[in-house]
């Protein structure tokens, strides 16, 4: 089997007269975490639903491990695990019953395998309780467990950290890295949060208005995009001092934004203090997705 596990060619979806998805093409390799980045409504979820067979594409092909999902749906699906949006499970059944329910639909899945994935996501203690008593984090873990049941080659997670608390988010990131690096899975993750993608993915596709506008590695994408936000008092004086040192990018009430520079920023701070300006706050900011988009699309607004 080649190292390409998921291949999308010329994917289009037309609903009525509107083209929701325009000609998407990309390929995913074994062992990589691929980010799908875009604002809400960009077509991420529609694309993912097409990948997992919930929506039929108007044209284009999707191959999972070389199998066309339009022609060999069941075979292709046996290589895929996914969570689309929230991990919805049957609340009136226990975690174990839920897993059994889905295991039945995957040929050759044994009770031993169920126990294995339960251990993998650390749900041993609560697995016999009803899902309705679970926290969102537990549901998310159980959702991952069911996605992993059939030993998939490709794992598709739609907004996997949505609604999790910070520690849950950290855990999830580590787990996704583990799956890709140790188990060799291809993981496709969608998100509308750039820093999230930045922290877990190897490559990222930026999608807006149904089009991929850039596919690149995360490091390339994020170079020289960091900013520094200053809160100064008195503001007018601070602004003029700072303005003489570097270009002011953005100005709001009480705050002003400049680029971030490892070498120079400390120097600017010292000069401000010497000029009698109190620096109330220096805030290093990752570039907002909006900014990135503005840049990539050349000022085209996102909706």
């Amino acid at each position, binding site marked *: 089997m080649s190292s390409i596990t998921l291949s999308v060619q010329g994917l289009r979806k037309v609903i009525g007269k509107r083209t929701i998805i325009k000609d998407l093409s990309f390929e995913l390799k074994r062992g990589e975490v691929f980010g799908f980045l875009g604002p809400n409504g960009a077509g991420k979820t529609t694309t993912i639903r097409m990948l997992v067979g919930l929506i039929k594409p108007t044209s284009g092909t999707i191959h999972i491990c070389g199998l066309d999902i339009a022609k060999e749906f069941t075979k292709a699906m046996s290589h895929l695990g996914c969570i689309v949006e929230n991990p919805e499970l049957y609340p009136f059944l226990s975690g174990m*019953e839920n897993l*059994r329910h889905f*295991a*039945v639909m995957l040929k050759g899945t044994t*009770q031993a395998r169920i126990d294995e994935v339960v251990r993998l996501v650390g749900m041993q203690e609560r697995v016999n309780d009803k899902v309705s008593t679970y926290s969102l984090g537990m549901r998310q873990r159980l959702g991952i467990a069911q996605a992993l049941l059939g030993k998939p080659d490709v794992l598709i997670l739609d907004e996997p950290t949505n609604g999790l608390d910070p520690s849950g988010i950290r855990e999830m990131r580590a787990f996704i890295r583990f799956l890709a690096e140790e188990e060799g899975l291809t993981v496709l993750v969608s998100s509308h949060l750039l820093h999230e993608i930045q922290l877990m993915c190897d490559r990222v596709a930026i999608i807006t208005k149904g089009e991929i506008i850039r596919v690149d590695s995360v490091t390339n994408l994020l170079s020289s995009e960091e900013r520094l936000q200053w809160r100064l008092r008195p503001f007018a004086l601070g602004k003029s001092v700072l303005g003489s040192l570097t270009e002011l990018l953005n100005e709001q009430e009480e705050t002003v934004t400049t680029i971030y520079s490892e070498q120079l920023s400390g120097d600017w701070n010292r000069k401000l203090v010497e000029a009698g300006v109190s620096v109330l706050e220096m805030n290093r900011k990752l570039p907002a997705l909006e900014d990135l988009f503005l840049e990539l699309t050349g000022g085209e607004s996102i909706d």
Partner: protein
Amino acid sequence: MHSKKVRIITVFAAFTCLLWIFGLGWTVKDYLIGAAHSAYSPPAADESAAQTNELKIIALGDSLTRGTGDIEGKGYVGYVTDQLKKEGLDVSLINLGIKGLTSERLAEQIKEKEIKRQIGQGDIILMTIGGNDLFLGGQTLTNITDDSISKLEEAYLSHLKAILADIRAVNTEATIYLLGLYDPFNEFPEGALTSKTVRGWNSKTMELLAEDSKAVFVPTYDLFQLNVNDYLFTDHFHPNEVGYRLMADRVAALITSGGGPR
């Protein structure tokens, strides 16, 4: 993989499914394809009805027996029963009265097997009949001729004769009380004429009943002769509560004094 409970229930449900399919198939076979007509022989009716000390009253006839016009819906039959119960008698009542019944239809009804059986068990038979023959819902009133009346009378008498014969065929012991007709129209302009007709009708009925020693003609004409409107229901034809009570008093008295319980 599934719990035992689920498996058992699923298998059991499949079994019940087969059962209902069988039931449906059987129905289709029986009703659509046609079943062999199984000739049936009804079990011999147990005629040995438990003999009790009860006084069994069977009421036959038309709307008067039914109690039309009585607010309480009891009619004279109901009041008779009430009075007898007050006297301390153990009474049971079967009221077979049907509104609008004519003597002809009563003669038919009485031929029914079950009616016969019930009459056979009766101790007392109360009857009102003939009113619908004569008045035909009020039409006779407008054109009374001797000719038309005598025709009606003739038919009525022959039916009554048949009715009596049929009753006696199944029950020789019971006392039959036949209540005569009253004239609801005697205060109308043609009152004199209708009253004469009713009187004639009643006397002929009485004559016929005289042939049976245990058949009693109970006149009601006199009860309604004066102040007829006080005793009639708003339809000006059926008695009201008071009228029914008058009739009942008379019948009850007859039962308790004379042809009463054996």
